[in-house]
């Protein structure tokens, strides 16, 4: 801000105003409203109960095992699915970067999962994991890896894993696409120099590709982590957060609190906490990826 004022004075501020107004209207006002509501008891089905309660909503959440369970499930989901998506996405990007016949078609085809609406792919995975009709059980039984069919989505031990598989299937092409763009940004002379220096296979990957791919990896990681953190539709369709909350993420809990329980105070507190965790997560990721300076700049 001070820079702008020094450079051009009021005119610059005027030019900035529309953008600032837009950001304020679309982001800051709703955020402030959520923050305000989170300090009130707002039960839509009992309007007379409305009262300022300070931090009560937050304290109640911190005291509830359901909140901590949802936080744990969400972070687990984010960590496992994003790591898998990055690893598989990198492999896919390297494959698609090679020259081969039909590369264009292959690149287009691998975008299909990403292009499908999540609800559709979730329904599809629901059938894949169906205990009796599903192909997952069929394959594993035929291969002799299972003795009896599993109820993938009905058992706490497997339900979250199944949801992660569905998410990885869907988001890996997206990661691959970002990384492919990064690979294509690496100049021909770099490949040549690496070849002359005798870098092949793993050493090429570790010493040349990965360092140069770092910005693209960072972007992919950040986008995926923030996106996975809000996961709702996939899990709502697959398990509704069951069995016994084993797949209940923060977004699902927030939905239940807001739109089923009609507890807008507690629901707003949850939204604020989700925002805070997500914001912290992105700061940490930015710092890890781009160092202190970059993270500071983005945060400011």
């Amino acid at each position: 801000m001070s820079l702008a004022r020094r450079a051009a004075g009021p005119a610059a501020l005027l030019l900035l105003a529309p953008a600032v107004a837009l950001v304020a209207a679309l982001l800051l006002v709703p955020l402030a409203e959520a923050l305000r509501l989170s300090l009130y008891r707002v039960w839509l089905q009992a309007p007379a109960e409305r009262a300022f309660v300070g931090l009560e909503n937050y304290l109640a959440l911190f005291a509830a095992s359901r909140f901590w369970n949802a936080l744990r499930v969400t972070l687990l989901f984010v960590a496992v699915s994003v790591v898998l998506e990055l690893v598989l996405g990198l492999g896919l990007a390297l494959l698609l970067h090679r020259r081969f016949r039909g590369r264009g078609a292959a690149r287009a085809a691998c975008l299909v999962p990403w292009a499908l609406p999540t609800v559709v792919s979730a329904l599809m995975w629901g059938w894949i994991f169906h205990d009796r009709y599903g192909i997952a059980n069929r394959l594993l039984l035929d291969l002799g890896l299972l003795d009896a069919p599993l109820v993938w989505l009905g058992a706490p031990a497997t339900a979250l894993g199944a949801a992660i598989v569905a998410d990885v299937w869907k988001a890996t092409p997206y990661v691959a696409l970002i990384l492919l763009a990064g690979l294509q940004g690496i100049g021909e002379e770099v490949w040549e120099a690496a070849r002359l220096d005798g870098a092949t296979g793993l050493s090429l990957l570790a010493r040349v590709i990965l360092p140069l791919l770092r910005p693209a990896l960072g972007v992919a990681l950040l986008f995926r982590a923030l996106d996975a953190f809000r996961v709702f539709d996939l899990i709502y369709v697959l398990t509704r957060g069951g069995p016994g909350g084993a797949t209940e993420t923060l977004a699902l809990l927030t939905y239940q609190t807001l739109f089923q329980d009609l507890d807008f105070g507690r629901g707003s507190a949850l939204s604020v906490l989700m925002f805070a965790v997500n914001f912290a997560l992105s700061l940490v990721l930015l710092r890890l990826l781009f160092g202190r300076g970059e993270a500071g700049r983005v945060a400011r």
Partner: protein
Amino acid sequence: MVVNGNSARRVSSPRMVRGDDVAGRPAAMGASPNGNRSSAQDRAGPRRLGALRVVGLRLAMLAAASLGAGPAARAAEITIAQFRQRESPVERELLAAFEAAHPGVRVRQREMPASSDVQHQQFVTWLVAGDPSVDVYLIDVIWVAEFAAAGWIRPLDAFLAPARRAEFFPSLLRAMTYEGKPFALPRFTENGLLYYRKDLVPAPPATWDELVALAKRHQRPGLAGFVFQGLQYEGLVVNFLEHLWARGGDVLDERGRAALHGPAGLSALTFLVDLLHTHRISPPGVTTYMERESLQEFLEGRAVFHRNWAYAWSQVERQDSKVRGRVGVAPLPGAGGRPGAGALGGWNLAVSRFTRHPEAAWRLVDWLTSGAAQRRKALGEGRIPTLRALYADAEVLRANPHLAVLRTLLPAARPRPVSPFYPRLSGILQGYLSRALARTTTPQDALAGAAAELDRALPRP
């Protein structure tokens, strides 16, 4: 949207409503012989009769309207938000008949997706915003108290004449009542029932223990003993409540404190868990079933016993059902000398607080819950009526033989706790019950946890 200030001002007077629905009813019922034949696709009657039926309905409506309708309800467009009614001409006929009887009133439908969670969310969003563009809502029985307490729907006591009120099963109206006033009228009802394969089991079991014994005797690979709804959602709560009530328990005591962790609750939840893990008469997959999935198993001929709502009967009897003609319907079994208890479900019409045409909106509610309209829905779509008289109607009974069972059940039908906080209560139960079914916790701990959380989350009355 046509907004007529005149009508908006006049309609708030209930005076002009009283006479006509009482007087209109016999006319409406009397007109029904014209519309006798069912029009469900699988037994579509001759076209001519269909046309006669429409004329009959219109005459009935005209008769009803001419007796009491003033100019009040004129020049209005009213919108009814309801889940998509079946692919049959019945709903269109009913709305057309209403328009014919109320010149100047146009009815628009806003069709909602079938998922009741999605409907709830959408309705809440509109109502919080005070949206006047929907006048009549078709709502689930478990939302009536909530919507009433939030001030989103209007009390109907001023509109509802005593004679009209007396047509309904009192038990159904009780579920519509909040702080002593009716806030909705039941359009179709639902009740939990036991479906059984009468080709395998000649007589339905009277107790759950008998059901277990029969299921064990008949089940074999590919034929499960009993399928119900075990996914973590509202349906799981319903199934649990039915077991709980059959054992004389309840979720809350009369002072509004959690009571489900008593002996009845423990016995009910233990039984539910045992169905899967000890008796093994329910396949492990039931923990992923909602109504549709469990019904599919039964329709495929893969289960001896099945718990579902009354609407499932029309599915059982469809052409493509593999168990057609081999299914019996019975009340849910009892336990310990008590009769069984099916939960009350169903969909109900309420008038929005924010409507600009309360009079016209009420008239639509009145018409769609009338004997003539419910008769058409029962014959054409197999919807379960809410009026006592229709359970004595030979043709309705012939088309829906399970009404003979419902007739004995509905007078004592049991609503889920009628509370503005029911969805909250249910959300808590869903998690704990599901945990017990998945055996990540014991029934004792699940119930104790649920009780503690209920007491924290629900305000005392």
